[in-house]
């Protein structure tokens, strides 16, 4: 966790609505969070929760209905001048989920990795460009001779690494990784995660990691936000969240992860959540900081319950320490 708390990306009260003719779908409700420089911030939720929508809004693929996205002090959402749009593309890159469809099947790896370079003419000569491509390929563990081949000749893990090479060659500062390992085999996931970690250390990258696999997220993140039906329900540092989940949805999400231990799995109890435990008819909920660094979406009544829980745990821990 980096010490300098410099905010590099800030989302303020984002709402995203998808319209199809007369029908409206409110995908993201009033989300706000900050991401600090050099950290790995994870956004966790199930399909349809809105996490991918937020990721795509940051790279300006989706439009906001209301709210702002601020990158390094400058607004990057809505209508912005062309020059700033270019800056966004240079600085913020995205890694996509599905290695089978995120590469242009009819282009060689050479073109795929160089596409960004071509668009902004980020090379001095043909030799320089080739050099950049080769270096990017080698940094993800692929061989230079692969650049003349087509995507379908590679395995899933290799294709995902080509996708990473494509983003890395642009030398961004911020990467939105949209479920980059969900479609990969278990033993390949580690390769990709290690690669991302290595780049972060070498190049000082900041990541927004979008995922649904909590066990992986715990390992790589500094802070985690849990999103449910378009609303962020809880946000905290990762160990804090795993050790003291407060929101019932977070609880159900964690109990659902299968533990790779036969004895523990057989004893495990399953929590289900359907939203019926909340009564928001009179007492309206809001986004509060219930503990330093630990945010939660709750109304007054629930706030009191959570505060009591925190107190109980504090006492319990102190007694445990004494022993």
């Amino acid at each position, binding site marked *: 966790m980096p010490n300098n708390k410099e905010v590099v990306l800030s989302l303020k009260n984002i709402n995203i609505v998808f319209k199809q003719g007369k029908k409206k779908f409110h995908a993201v409700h009033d989300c706000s969070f900050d991401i600090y420089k050099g950290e790995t911030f994870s956004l966790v939720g199930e399909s349809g929760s809105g996490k991918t929508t937020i990721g795509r809004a940051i*790279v300006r693929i989706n439009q906001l209905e209301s709210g702002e996205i601020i990158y390094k002090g400058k607004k990057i959402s809505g209508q912005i001048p062309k020059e700033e749009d270019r800056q966004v593309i240079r600085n913020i890159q995205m890694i996509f989920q599905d290695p089978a469809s995120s590469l242009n099947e009819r282009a060689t790896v050479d073109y795929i990795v160089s596409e960004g370079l071509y668009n902004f003419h980020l090379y001095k000569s043909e030799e320089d460009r080739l050099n950049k491509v080769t270096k990017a390929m080698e940094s993800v563990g692929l061989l230079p001779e692969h650049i003349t081949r*087509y995507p379908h000749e590679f395995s899933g893990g290799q294709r995902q690494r080509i996708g990473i090479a494509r983003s890395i060659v642009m030398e961004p500062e911020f990467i939105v990784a949209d479920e980059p390992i969900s479609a990969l085999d278990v033993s390949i996931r580690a390769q990709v995660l290690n690669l991302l970690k290595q780049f972060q250390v070498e190049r000082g990258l900041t990541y927004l990691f979008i995922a649904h696999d909590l066990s992986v997220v715990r390992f790589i993140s500094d802070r985690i936000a849990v999103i449910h039906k378009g609303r962020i329900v809880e946000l905290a540092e990762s160990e804090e969240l795993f050790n003291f989940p407060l929101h019932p949805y977070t609880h159900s999400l964690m109990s659902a992860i299968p533990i790779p231990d036969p004895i523990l799995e057989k004893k495990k109890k399953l929590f289900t959540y359907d939203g019926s435990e909340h009564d928001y008819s009179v007492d309206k909920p809001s986004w509060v900081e219930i503990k330093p660094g630990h945010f939660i979406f709750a109304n007054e009544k629930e706030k009191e319950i959570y505060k009591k829980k925190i107190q109980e745990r504090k006492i319990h821990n102190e007694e445990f320490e004494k022993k």
Partner: protein
Amino acid sequence: MAEKKNKDDLFVLADNRSSDAEKIYAPNYSYWRSVVRSFFSKKTNYVALGVLIVILLLSFINPLVSGYTTDAPNINNGDLHLLPPGTTFDGIFYIFGTDHQGDSLFAAIWAGARTSLVLALVASAINMSVGVVVGAFWGYSKAVDKIMTEVYNIISNVPFILFVTVFMYIAGSGFWQLVAAMTITGWIGIAYFIRTQVIIIRDREYNLASRCLGTSIPRMVTRNILPYLTSVIVTLLSREIPSYISYEVFLSYIGVGIDASTPSLGRMIQMYATWMDQKPYVFWIPVAVAACVTISLYVVGQNLADSSDPKTHMI
């Protein structure tokens, strides 16, 4: 015993050769080579392609050699009229016989076929180029979509054959009039089809990735969208070309096609229809040839379309 000892030596840790694991051993994939291989893996394609090549050669070379014209030079020479196929008259072998004007049916047919083929190729070329380009932009840009959909709804409600027939009545018969008739609105159906395909692939992740990298719309169309459409385009062509031949035959048959001075299969069939009972060969041979041309074009086109679909290269 010695062999076992040798094997025992092998029970030591080996040095790790992990970079070998990244190598790809399969030969480089080449799209067009796979297309050709896939096409020729079906035996029927050899036959269909052979028939098509023969037809093309005959259509383009024979008229030059035979010197056929529509002037009916032998109309007054009664002996030459309506000779059955295979007869030799005056030292000349008439493989298909002669028609009621004394012209060699063989020469007449290939001259007519040439006209049909040229017409089909020209009309297809124009319609496909305009249609694909318009369709690609139509599918990709939401702004263009709004305008073009209205245009399409109006134009497509007029039946094509009706439009062409009326146009030809007004413009008069002739080769270029027919080309115009078929291309003024012919491209829109193609454009619509391409637009639908483009909409399907527009939101695929690799296109989103290109947008993230700042790729401009023209480059997206040429490098991301159009290569995907190769198979679709070949399929369209395989239907378009034969259909124009059929249109020409039909229009000339009802009298609004090509003018009388240009050889035409359709007009021939119309002329010969009256002889169907007495001299059936005069009618059926041109019909059979017209059918052969259309069918061989269609078969080759369809199979080429299948072969150019990259998904079939995997099997």
